[in-house]
């Protein structure tokens, strides 16, 4: 284990952020994709106009996980209530891919800018694994890190087994490994937020750079965990509950009618209001015709009200439509329809 790891880990345990809490505009409009791209004399370079399954949402106001933005070197993700100041000379060179149909998000990826003068490069990758939909055998962030450790590829060596630490008053599981042949080190931090495993992966050949990056994470602003059992963020967001769209909670259900036969999984996150009606739909990955059919169907769904301390509260849950891409034998727990 690298000698700096314990020191950094301990330092993180008591650190607090002094940065202002800021929220930027969503990175992209998450309304249903429009086909009105207009008439052009030339096809523009560097633009993907013909898209496959993509994320979309029923409104552009409610934050979605992929809706982060960078303003003045500060990364903000409203959905996770996360704010992170990039290290000096670092930048997000490229946005990452859209959310996958297995529930993985690349929220941000940072690396030294081309103007960076340092000899050694590094990378910061922030991802989220939707725990409603992940095919990995994990129910929480600790599981996820343990699974990674237990299934580490043969050419990696563990530097620090999974251990608990704190960043910005939140519990993180910290795990470090390295590749002797590539001389690359990875520091992995994971916490659970809104039923996602949020991961921050730092990688570099330079462990000093990694330690500095770890310390920089102290400046990150994250909401404290409000409830250890469900690990929801504060009280301003819905309670996230896996499998809430089960028969015992659904009063009225109408299955979507797809006009085109497709074979992709369509993971959908919904927010149910205090009256049991769906107030927000977020498609992680869907073709527009699928999103339309599911939206039409979900408008007719009614749920039992969910009570906490005797009061109705909003619930966030997940439903997998379309084809469920799971290996044989894997339990499909979220599928409301096939």
């Amino acid at each position, binding site marked *: 284990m690298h000698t700096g790891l314990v020191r950094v880990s301990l330092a993180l345990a008591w650190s607090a952020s002094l940065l202002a809490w800021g929220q930027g505009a969503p990175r992209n409009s998450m309304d249903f994709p429009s086909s009105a791209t207009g008439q052009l004399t030339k096809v523009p370079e560097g633009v*993907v106009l013909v898209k496959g399954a993509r994320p979309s949402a029923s409104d552009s106001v409610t934050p979605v996980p992929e809706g982060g933005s960078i303003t003045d070197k500060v990364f903000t993700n409203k959905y996770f209530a996360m704010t992170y100041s990039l290290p000096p000379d670092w930048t997000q*060179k490229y946005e*990452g*891919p859209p959310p996958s149909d297995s529930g993985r998000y690349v929220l941000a990826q940072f690396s030294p800018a081309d103007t960076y003068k340092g000899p050694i490069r590094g990378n910061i*990758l922030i991802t989220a694994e939707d725990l409603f939909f992940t095919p990995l055998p994990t129910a929480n962030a600790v599981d996820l890190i343990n699974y990674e450790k237990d299934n580490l590829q043969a050419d990696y060596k563990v530097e620090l087994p999974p251990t608990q630490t704190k960043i910005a008053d939140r519990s993180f599981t910290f795990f470090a490994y390295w590749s002797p*042949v590539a001389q690359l080190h990875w520091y*992995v931090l994971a916490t659970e937020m809104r039923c996602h495993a949020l991961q921050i992966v730092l*990688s570099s050949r330079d462990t000093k750079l990694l330690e500095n990056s770890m310390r920089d994470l102290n400046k990150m602003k994250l909401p404290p965990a409000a409830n250890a059992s469900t690990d929801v963020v504060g009280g301003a967001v819905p309670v996230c509950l896996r499998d809430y769209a089960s028969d015992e909670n659904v009063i009225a259900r109408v299955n979507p009618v797809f006009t085109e036969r*497709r074979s992709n999984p369509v993971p959908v996150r919904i927010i149910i209001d205090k009256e049991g009606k769906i107030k927000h739909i977020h498609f992680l990955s869907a073709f527009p015709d699928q999103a339309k059919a599911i939206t039409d169907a979900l408008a007719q769904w009614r749920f039992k009200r969910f009570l906490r301390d005797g009061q109705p509260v909003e619930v966030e849950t997940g439903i997998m439509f379309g084809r469920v891409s*799971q290996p044989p034998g894997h339990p499909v727990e979220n599928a409301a329809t096939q």
Partner: protein
Amino acid sequence: MIKREKLTSALTIAVLFFAGIAFAQTDPGVQSASRGTGVTIINPSDDPNGFTAFFNDGLVRFQEVETVSGSANVGLGPRFNSNQCSSCHAQPAVGGTGPAVNPQFLFTSNGVAPGNTMPSFITANGPTREARFPFGFNSNGSVNTNVIIGGVEALFTVTGRSDAGTCNSATALPQPSFALAVEENNVIFRIPTPVFGAGLIENLDDSTLLKNQVTNLKNNFGITGTFNHNGNDGTIARFGWKAQNKSLHLFTGEAYNVEMGITNEVFQNERPLPGEDGNGGSGDTGLVASCLNLAGIGYPEDRSNPNSTPNAAVLDDVSAFSNFMRFLAPPIQGGVVLNGQQVSAQSISTGSALFSSIGCATCHNPTPGTTQQSNFAPALSNAPVNAFSDIEIHTMGTTLADNVSQGGAGGDQFRTAPLWGLGQRIFLLHDGRTTNLITAIQDHASKGSEANTVIENFNSLSTAQQQEVLNFLRSL
């Protein structure tokens, strides 16, 4: 004395300069030493069903030159990209990818397509290509991105050929507007995918690929692939740049129809170009009558031959081609020569480990699985598929995106290209845009790509380590 100091200084600079060149990473380039590629995977002494004869028959037919009419091999056109499978699937052996000298470039001068204009993107030593227009055009010639097309625009017509019969009017059968499409950035290209080892990929069960997909998910590179599916039965499709084709039979039948204009038992009708087919309200009603049934034998132009002998001759061409590809052995890994020097086995081994460590192997899986039992030949049973591909489709960013959707794959999604045989490929990436491995690697990174973190890892390696990765890749 001053002069001597200046000279010393200049020499020092020169030494540093040339040292810099010597230590810059270099693509070893196409490996010319024979690796035995192009033979059958079947062991003739363990071939209980007799498919060796079918492989050999398919190999012969794969190299036959097709004509429009009046020969033993008719049906070419009325539109086509080439007249022979092996003209494009040639490097380093029959069944491979595009050769160093592009046969398409000669078609307007050697009688294959005499009434045609050579498109600017077909060059003497460039890649063999097919072209697609992602979008339609307005009547004034500007691009209309609301009209999504993406189908193959065949490069050539039979116009001007002596065997073209009634189809000899460039007005009735014009070439697509390639110059306009180039000018307006509304054309993309595809190069031939090599088909070595294709029978092994075909024989991977879906469950094997699905389990492998979950295994691939345990990465910290931000990578998650998905599969393209066959629209009819919903199973995993696996052939073509976007994994749009389910089986070798389908892949071949489509190619025979689209690339050579030969109707067959899978695709029985002549194919109008996109825009010629009336879709989108153009008012066009397909190919002109004077360009139909040019072989004079009716449809399909390729069919099985019940009265022929031996057994293999009974098959239609599409079945014969499929058998050839199915039983074509995978490429064999070989030694690498860099700047005239043999690269050490240690360098290649280290390159392999680096390839895995930095995350390339998360998608380019050395072995995505083992085949199921084969009812064709024992050689295809329970065999590891060392394809260096997960057969999944991945979002690859704006630099590689081609704005063509096929099946469930969008305009920026591509199948992980199998890397077996890479050491002897000339043209790289789906459109053959480069012959340099370094460019091909760097083009994996751009806005929206799953590979960005992995490319950042590659860039973080030392020059010597990057060289070892390149050496390894050219050993495949």
